[in-house]
């Protein structure tokens, strides 16, 4: 395992996992557990290299386990890691695709971008962040996309405003075959609401709470088109126009109290 910090609170990790790298496809994720008392957390496979036998993970330190993960050093081992999980992104020749990434959501979009380009799609990437220093992997997107637009909330870089403003400009003026949005739930919801009247197919990648990640527990269930679906095996990508974002949002904060307890306790222990 190799690790580096690429933005405040955001680390990149290259993990030696040849079996997972061998089968990893765009849209896949892994579930990992750091130690005997640890929880299982899902992380998107942001990149993979079959020859080197490695996978790349980006993560934002938002809770106890990601904080702990951030404390690992290059050369350390991850106790348990399983994957590649999830249904891969269906990739074919669509035409003009717009990828909308918010924050760490770029980790999920990057392999999708590469796969779409391998099938000769034209890709516009819209990357959003609160502020310039939180923007990650812009150069990677510039390498593969036909065009990259940046939007920051505070206007410190690119255009000031939301990714949806940039997206609206594009779909008002150009034809778009497919939009894929990955980021905070409210952003994905806003993108889906924006494209709905235009009838543009819009995929979103969901991040519900998971336990085992292989379709057995149902913790990750979401309501899609009125039906209960398991994000870990039927997703994590779904049609944004069919997802019940409010239901998902409510389930995402179900353990908020426990997450706070766990993080506080961890930080207290670290100080000692």
């Amino acid at each position, binding site marked *: 395992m190799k690790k580096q910090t690429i933005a405040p609170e955001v680390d990149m990790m290259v993990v030696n996992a040849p*079996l997972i790298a061998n089968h990893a496809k765009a849209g896949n994720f892994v579930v990992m557990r750091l130690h005997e008392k640890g929880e299982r957390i899902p992380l998107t496979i942001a990149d993979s290299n079959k020859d080197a036998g490695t996978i790349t993970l980006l993560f934002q330190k938002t809770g106890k386990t990601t904080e702990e993960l951030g404390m690992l050093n290059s050369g350390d081992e991850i106790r*348990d890691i399983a994957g590649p999980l999830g249904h891969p992104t269906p990739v074919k020749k669509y035409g003009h695709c717009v990828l909308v990434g918010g924050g760490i959501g770029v980790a999920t979009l990057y392999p999708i971008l590469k796969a779409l380009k391998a099938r000769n799609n034209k890709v516009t990437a819209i990357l959003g962040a609160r502020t310039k220093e939180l923007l990650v992997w812009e150069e990677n997107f510039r390498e593969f996309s036909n065009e990259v637009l940046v939007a920051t909330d505070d206007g410190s870089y690119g255009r000031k405003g939301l990714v949806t403003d940039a997206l609206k400009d594009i779909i008002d003026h150009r034809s778009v075959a497919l939009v894929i949005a990955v980021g905070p739930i409210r952003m994905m919801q806003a993108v889906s609401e924006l494209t709905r009247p235009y009838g543009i197919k819009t995929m979103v990648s969901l991040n519900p709470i998971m*336990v085992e990640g292989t379709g057995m*527990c149902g913790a990750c269930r979401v309501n899609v088109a009125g039906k209960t679906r398991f994000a870990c*095996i039927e997703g994590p990508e779904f049609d944004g126009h069919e997802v019940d974002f409010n*239901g998902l949002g409510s389930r995402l904060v179900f353990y908020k109290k426990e997450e706070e307890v766990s993080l506080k306790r961890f930080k207290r222990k670290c100080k000692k």
Partner: protein
Amino acid sequence: MRYRNPEKRKADFKEVSLGLTERQAVKEAARCLQCKKPRCIAGCPVEIDIPKFISFVKEKDYLGGLRTIREFNMLPAICGRVCPQETQCQGMCILGKKSKPVSIGSIERFVADYEVSLGRIDLPDIKPSNGHKVAVIGSGPAGLTVAADLAKLGYDITVFEALHEAGGVLAYGIPEFRLPKKTIQREIEFVKGLGVRILLNRVIGKTQTIDEFFNDGFKAIFIGVGAGAPKYLGIPGENLNNVYFASEFLTRVNLMKAHHFPVYDTPVKKARKVAVIGGGNVAMDSARTALRLGAERVYIVYRRSERELPSRHEEIENAKEEGIRFRFLSDPRVILGNDAGWVRAIRCEKMRLSDPDESGRKRPEPTGKEFTISVDQVIMAIGQTSNPILVRSIKGLKLWGDGYIGIDREGRTNLKGIFAGGDISTGAATVISAMGAGKRAARSIDEYIMGR
């Protein structure tokens, strides 16, 4: 059998049943009539020579008894605890007609625990290696049985487990108070002692494929991945906060140790009033787990009557003693939530049982009368179905029903070299029936590879 005091035991996760003392075991063994044509053996899915093992116990040769069981069954400490003996061996016991059947399960458990108390493991004879590699997918009861049986015959066995711990449903499904983790670990150590390798975190169909196994020189593959995917009722309110599938609720506690949160990282919600929907072992396990997490009231909501409860009899008795409340002939219609999207109540319809149909089964019929139970947590324990990850990854594999693998009586699938057994071929059933399927599959894998 001795049990811990209900008031004490419901406050912790330690084992409820204490098993037999040596004196009790010998006395119970002496009750066996040693029938010429033993019916108990016919009632056992793995056909243990029950009278023989009991005769050893009667003579106080407990290890002799254990050796006899292990000729048929490698997991006696587990089976002695979780088998539904009342419908199997003990259900057939001739003594049961007039009085109580011999407590075969308790004696089985006693001899297995006796070996533990000596701190040793007696491994059986293992044939010299024949060099043939066999892959076993899933480390639950079916997979462990296939692995152990074939390892004894000299095969080179690798078991692939998707989770970070071996044991399958034994590890994530059955609670500590009914089947202690150290009992499972010990039986798994026994299987490893036979030379079996267990690789964790391998989600076959994703991490590796069946085709890769054949290319890597595996001669045969056994699929025993269980029926892990939860079924749902399809009623409104199922996705409210604090509605759990039993599989998630139990996995959080059994596998992830959420009852030790925050020492362990995984949380589970503790509720005051809980409704568990269903009447099987998983429902009893969920209800009693919720109680141990501190719930004040726990209801089992079941749409048929007490007589139809599919759970193991002993667990129903244990649950009642611990104060679980039963609402029979009650069919959930809707789970009600508050404004924040959290459970506040469950509304059910009162049912009545019909006259028996052709199969002799009485069906629950709606009465039109509804009632509401105020609860802050609902756990759905209405069954499990097949998990699509592996089965859908194998081209041409014949499936039936809800994605179960079609096999013949010997555990063969329609594809050459691929065998299956346990819940993934039958739908959710018992530990021991999965082990029976594992035994048959091991026999036919041996025949297949040896070209007999």
